[in-house]
């Protein structure tokens, strides 16, 4: 039985009493058992977290207050880097472009992965053995290779797509010279690559929905769409939430794929935020500045995550 459809676990008492604010409905035991056990369970992640995230992050944060160039001393400059960042138009341009990109990719990937998952789980579709492999393959490819494939497909001069368009009598589109068209190509490529991952998450979630619900709905005479909206969607809401959240975070950090497809071009019009950080910081040896930009990005992502969490909590309750 699925007893919770929110992002947070809520305790429900077996006897149907309203849940107490503190989550204890079982006979009170020694406090230890419920501190030691979970502590032990998170121990591996905790140690790794401290060692391989906090420690480097602190080092990085330190750099952000200096004008470190990667070699030699790291002179302290206080909030200089952050001030420079706030007035850097290239940073905002990159940030805005990244937001647009994310706004396009996340919904598209959500629909595509939920759709394919639904089709793969449904009893009505035949030939799933082959299609489930086909849907999964794009995700296996490394971003560099995917970049090459899509660059060739949408090449402006000798790409397959323009070739087909011209053969059919149309005019070749400037897939590389036009910043927006170029971004569209990346959006398509990113959706193509990212579908399988979310699809598997949705498949696991869809399979977890009890058939009894559907049977009950059938008895009530509900059609497929109603079943989907009223039963499936709410039942997979925890997974949906995590899919949207992780997709958003992952897409905001996009670098490899877009670099492989158009190198942030034409010119610098499709520079996304991580490429900006990489070029300013690591190429131009302004490690301090790049670290500051990274932490601003961290802050933005935290805000996005909190917003999504609040939104889903409100929807869930």
């Amino acid at each position, binding site marked *: 039985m699925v007893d919770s459809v929110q992002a947070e676990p809520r305790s429900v008492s077996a006897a149907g009493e309203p849940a107490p604010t503190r989550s204890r409905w079982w006979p009170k035991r020694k406090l230890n058992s419920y501190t030691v056990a979970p502590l032990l369970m998170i121990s591996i992640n905790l140690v790794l977290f401290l060692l391989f995230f906090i420690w480097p992050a602190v080092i990085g944060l330190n750099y952000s207050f200096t004008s470190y160039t990667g070699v030699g001393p790291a002179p302290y400059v206080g909030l200089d880097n952050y001030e420079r960042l706030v007035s850097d138009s290239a940073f905002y341009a990159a940030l805005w472009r990244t937001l647009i990109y994310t706004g396009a990719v996340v919904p598209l990937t959500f629909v595509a992965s939920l759709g394919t998952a639904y089709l793969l789980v449904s009893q009505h579709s035949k030939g799933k053995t082959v299609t489930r492999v086909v849907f999964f393959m794009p995700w296996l490819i490394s971003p560099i290779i995917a970049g090459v494939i899509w660059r060739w497909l949408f090449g402006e001069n000798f790409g397959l797509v323009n070739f087909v368009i011209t053969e059919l009598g149309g005019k070749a589109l400037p897939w590389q010279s036009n910043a927006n068209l170029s971004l569209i190509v990346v959006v398509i490529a990113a959706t193509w690559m990212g579908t399988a991952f979310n699809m598997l998450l949705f498949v696991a979630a869809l399979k977890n929905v*009890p058939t009894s619900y559907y049977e009950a709905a059938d008895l009530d005479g509900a059609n497929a769409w109603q079943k989907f909206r009223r039963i499936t969607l709410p039942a997979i809401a925890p997974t949906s939430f995590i899919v949207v959240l992780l997709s958003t975070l992952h897409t905001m950090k996009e670098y490899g794929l877009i670099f492989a497809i158009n190198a942030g071009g034409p010119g610098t019009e499709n520079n996304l935020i991580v490429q900006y950080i990489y070029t300013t910081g690591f190429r131009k040896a302004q490690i301090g500045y790049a670290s500051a930009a990274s932490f601003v990005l961290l802050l933005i992502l935290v805000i996005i995550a909190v917003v999504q969490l609040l939104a889903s909590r409100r929807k869930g309750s």
Partner: protein
Amino acid sequence: MAVASKPPALRRRKVGKKGDVPRSIGTSSIMWLLAVVYGLPLIWFLLSSFKPAGDLFSYPLTVFPKHWTVSGYTQAWTKFDVAQYFVNTLIVAVSATLLTIVASAAAGYALAKYNSWWLKIFAGCILLTTMLPGETILAPLFVVIRNIGLYNSLAGVVVPAVITATGTFMFRQFFVTVPNDLLEAARIDGSSELSTFIRIMLPLARPIVLTLAIFSFQWRWNDFLWPLIILNDPNQFTLQIGVASIVGAQNVNWSVLLGASVLSMLPLIAIYLVFQKYVMSADINAGLKD
């Protein structure tokens, strides 16, 4: 909310239900259409790997090779020590995957089933790890690895990669849907928390375990920059380092690169084919039903 007596069911085929056949045709055709859209770039990529180098850029463009050749593959095979790199990558991928599953399952379960303020904070911390781009954290992370002494070893490639927010939350979201009644029943039976987790909860999560295994394997298999920086001894290089060495400073030997890329993808496909059977066919109604 009685414990169900229904066996982990096969979905009963409702044979002869009204509207079944048009339904099948409709759903199947949509699925096949999508499969074609997704598969076309791949097919083209695969076919291109069988074209000789001179034909790759010929105009007008061809989808099918005019002359089929495996020279790309044979050259890729001799370009670098494929067998050794393959073994190294396998070691990295398998050990990282095992550790990742253990760590993520345990942490995900803890986050789902226990309510403490510090667990909630920890959940936020785990999520935080996805918010710093890898390229940013590369140099400081290297400093840490060097100080610990894991430089130039496969362990240095594996250990930092074990923590994953995705994996932890996958398990968390799953365990959230497992009714607490099960946990309560186990407690009443006198089972300790850890043994409940290992004996009862973890087996329930098998599809998630296998899904995460597929993910983790792919992530480690396609890792490039970090193994390159950490490893000095060419006997420890991974497959992606070998593939990348085909890309020259000024030009690329495309047919060899395509061949090498396809070769390096084959093990991933094999893993997926083996595991997805369990993921797709598992009927996981979490043990308890209405």
